[in-house]
C-alpha cells in the first residue's frame, strides 16, 4: 500500500460536507500552499525550469556563447556514431553492474554481523557508516588517489611481500576497479537500512525454525532473505539510480579527464566535458536526457522483476 492511498483513505469521511467546512478546507489549502511556496519556488526555479530548458537545448546546437540553434534530432543521431560515448556507456554499465551488487552484498554482510547484538553496536554502526559520509567527498577521492598510486600505500605493502604492484589508478586495466572499490567501501547507507530491516523480522520465525532444527544457513536463505527482500529491492533501486549518476569520484581520481585512456570516463563525466569543456551544451543536454531514459528503463525493469522475487509479509 502506498503512502498516497493511505492519505486518500484518510480524507474519505462519512456524512455530508457543510458549506462552512468547505470554506475552512479551502482556507487550509491556501495556507498549505503558502507554506509550500519556498519549496515550490525552489523546485520550479532550480529544478523544473532548467530541466525544461535542457530538454529544449537537447534539440539544438548550443555553444554557450551564442544563442542556441534548432537542429532537431541531430544531437541524438550524433550519439549513435560517437565512439567515446559508447565507451563511456560501457564504463558506466560496468561500474553499476559490478559495483552495486558488490556494495549491497558487503552492506548486508556487515549488517548481519552487527545485528548479532554486539556490545557497543551504536559505535560500530557509526564507524561503518563513516565512509558513506566521506566517500563521495573530494577529500576521500584524493586520499584514494594517494593510496592507490604507483608509490602509494597499497604498493608499499605489496612491496614488503616482494610484489611490484601496478599504478592502480593510473593503469587503464585497473583504474575502473579502483573506483568500484571506492564505491563498495561506501556501503554505510544501505547497511543502515538493512539493519533497520533486519530488526523488523519477527523473532518467532527463527524460534520456530530452530525448533525444527534449521541450520544458520537455512535460516538465512529461508527467513532472512525473503523477509528482507523489500529492503533489498529498495536499496537496489536507490543504488542503481545513484550509481548511474556518480561523478565526483571519477572526476577527482582521474583529474577530470576520465583517464587513463578513457578507462574511467563515466557517462556523466563525458557529459560534463562535452558541455563545459568543449562548448557543446546541446549535445550534453541530449546526453542528459538519454541518461534519464536509461535510468528510467532500469528502474522500470527493476519494478517489473520485483514481482517475482520481492516478498511482502503484509
Amino acid at each position, binding site marked *: *500500500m502506498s503512502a498516497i492511498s493511505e492519505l486518500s483513505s484518510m480524507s474519505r469521511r462519512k456524512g455530508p460536507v457543510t458549506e462552512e467546512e468547505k470554506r475552512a478546507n479551502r482556507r487550509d489549502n491556501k*495556507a498549505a500552499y503558502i*507554506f509550500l511556496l*519556498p519549496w515550490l519556488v525552489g523546485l520550479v526555479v532550480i529544478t523544473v525550469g532548467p530541466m525544461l530548458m535542457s530538454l529544449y537545448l537537447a534539440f539544438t546546437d548550443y555553444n554557450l*556563447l551564442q544563442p542556441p540553434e534548432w537542429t532537431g534530432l541531430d544531437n541524438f543521431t550524433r550519439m549513435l556514431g560517437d565512439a567515446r560515448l559508447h565507451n563511456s556507456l560501457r564504463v558506466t554499465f560496468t561500474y553499476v553492474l559490478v559495483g552495486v551488487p558488490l556494495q549491497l552484498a558487503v552492506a548486508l554482510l556487515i549488517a548481519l554481523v552487527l545485528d548479532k547484538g554486539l556490545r557497543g553496536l551504536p559505535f560500530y554502526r557509526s564507524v561503518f557508516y563513516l565512509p558513506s559520509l566521506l566517500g563521495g567527498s573530494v577529500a576521500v577521492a584524493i586520499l584514494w588517489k594517494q593510496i592507490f598510486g604507483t608509490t602509494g600505500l597499497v604498493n608499499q605493502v605489496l612491496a614488503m611481500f616482494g610484489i611490484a604492484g601496478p599504478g592502480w589508478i593510473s593503469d587503464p586495466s585497473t583504474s575502473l576497479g579502483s573506483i568500484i572499490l571506492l564505491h563498495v567501501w561506501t556501503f554505510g547507507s544501505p547497511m543502515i537500512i538493512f539493519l*533497520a530491516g533486519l530488526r523488523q523480522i519477527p523473532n518467532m520465525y527463527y524460534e520456530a525454525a530452530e525448533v525444527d532444527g534449521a541450520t544458520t544457513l537455512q535460516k538465512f536463505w529461508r527467513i532472512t532473505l525473503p523477509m528482507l527482500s523489500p529492503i533489498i529491492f529498495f536499496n537496489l533501486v536507490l543504488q542503481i539510480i545513484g550509481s548511474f549518476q556518480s561523478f565526483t569520484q571519477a572526476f577527482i581520481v582521474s583529474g*577530470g*579527464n576520465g583517464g*587513463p585512456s578513457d578507462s574511467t570516463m563515466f557517462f556523466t563525466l563525458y557529459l560534463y566535458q562535452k558541455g563545459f569543456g568543449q*562548448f557543446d551544451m546541446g549535445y550534453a543536454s541530449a546526453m542528459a536526457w538519454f541518461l534519464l531514459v536509461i535510468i528510467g528503463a532500469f528502474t522500470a525493469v527493476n519494478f517489473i522483476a520485483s514481482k517475482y522475487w520481492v516478498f511482502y509479509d503484509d
Partner: protein
Amino acid sequence: MPLFPRPATAAASGAPAKPAKAKRRLRATAAVAAAAAAVLALSACGGPAQSSADGKVELRFSWWGGDKRAQVTQAAIAAFEAENPNIKIKAEYGDWSGYWDKLATQVAANDAPDIIQMDEKYITEYSTRGALLDLSKYGIDTSKLDEAALNAGKSDDGLTGIAAGINAATILANPAVFKAAGVALPDDKTWTWEDFERISAEVTAKSPKGTYGAAAYGTDEASLGVWLRQNGKSLYTSDGKLGFEPSDIAGWWDFLKQLSEKKAVPSASEVVEAEAAPLDQSGLATGKNGLAFWWSNQLPALEKAAGGELQVLRFPSKTGKAANTQLWYKASQFWSASSRTKHPEEVAKFINFLANDTKAGEILLADRGVYPNSEVRAAIQAKLTPADVKVVKFIDQIKGELGEAPAPPPKGAGAIQEIIKRYSSEVLFNRLSTQDAGTKAVDEMNSAISS
C-alpha cells in the same frame, strides 16, 4: 510497500482542533513573509558586477595560476586601486584545470568577469563567438608593445587580447639531479634528440629508483609543435586546419615509446600520475626528473617550488644546430575583456595599466613572461630576480634562432591538448599502435576544430 510502517496511532489521529480565524490569518501572513524572504534570498545571489550609488565601479578580474602569481597580481591590483580610488577590482583566480569550465559557464550565464586572462588556445573560440571586447576602441596604448606579441591578439574580430608576456617553449633542467647522477648537463646549442635520449637514460640508470632523466612529453601541444616544426610541418595552418598528417604525430610517439623503453622517461603509469600534479609537485620541482618540458615564464615559480636553481635549455634539434630548433615567441597569455562589460572604459584603463605602466611591471616582473612593452622591460631590468633574469636572457638569446611565427590556434583548439594526452597514454600503455593512434587522434582533432 511501507518500509517503515507508521504506528497505527499516527494514521488514525483526527484533524487538529480548528484555530480561531484571526490566528489563522496571522499564520498565513507569517508564511507569506517567510516565502517572500526565501525568494529574495534566492535572487540576491549572483549577478554581474555593478557600480554602486557612490559612483564606485567594481570590476571582476579572473586569471589562472599558482600562489606566486596570485601574490603579485593582487599587489598590482592594489597599486592600481591606489591611483584610481573610484575603481575596485575583485580578483577571481584558480588552477588552469578548472579555469576554462568555469569561464565557459560564466559567459553562458551572462556573468563573465570584466577582465579575463585569456590563452591563445581559446581566444579565437571566444572572439569569433563575440564574447570578447574589441579593445582597440578604448584607447589602450599599443605603441610600445612588441609587434609580434600585439598581432597575436588581433583577428577579424578586432583586438580582443593584449599580450601579457612573451615566452617560449623550453626544456628546464634540474642540476641537482644531474649532479647526484654524476652526469654533465647537456650543451643545448649542439644537442640532438639522440643526445636527449642517451643523456636521459644515463641519468635514470645512475639515479635512485623512481628518478628519471627526463619527464615524458606527450601531455601538451607545445612539445608536439616543436617536433612538427623541426620536421617542416606545423600544428595548424594559417587557414585554421591541422598542419600535419597521422604519420607525423605517429613518428613523435615512436620516439616517445623508444624513450620509455630505454627508461629515459618514467613508466606509463607514472606519466599519467604526473599529468595531474600541479606545478609545485611536478617531477622537476620534486627532484624526480632531470629534464622537463615547460614554458620559459614558469621557471621562477618552479625554482621556488624546487628550492634550488634550475637551468633553461633549448629544445634539442635533429641536426644539432641551435638555429634549427624552430622555437618561437608565444604570447604567454592575454588580457581580454568581456564584450558584455558595463564599464569598458574602466576595464581598458586597468588593462592599459597592466600592459604599459612601469609600476605594474615592477610588481608583476616576469611572472607572465617577458614584458611585451619595451619601455617597461627596460625600466624593470634592475628589479628582476635572478630567476627572472635567466628567463629574459634566454628569450633574448634565442631571438636570432626563431622559426616562423606559428599560425594562431583555430576555434576548437582548446580540445586538442586533451586528445594528445589521451592518445599518448594509449600508446604508452601499448593499447594502440602509434599509427592507429595517429589516425584516430587526427580524426578527432579535425572534428574538434571544424565544428
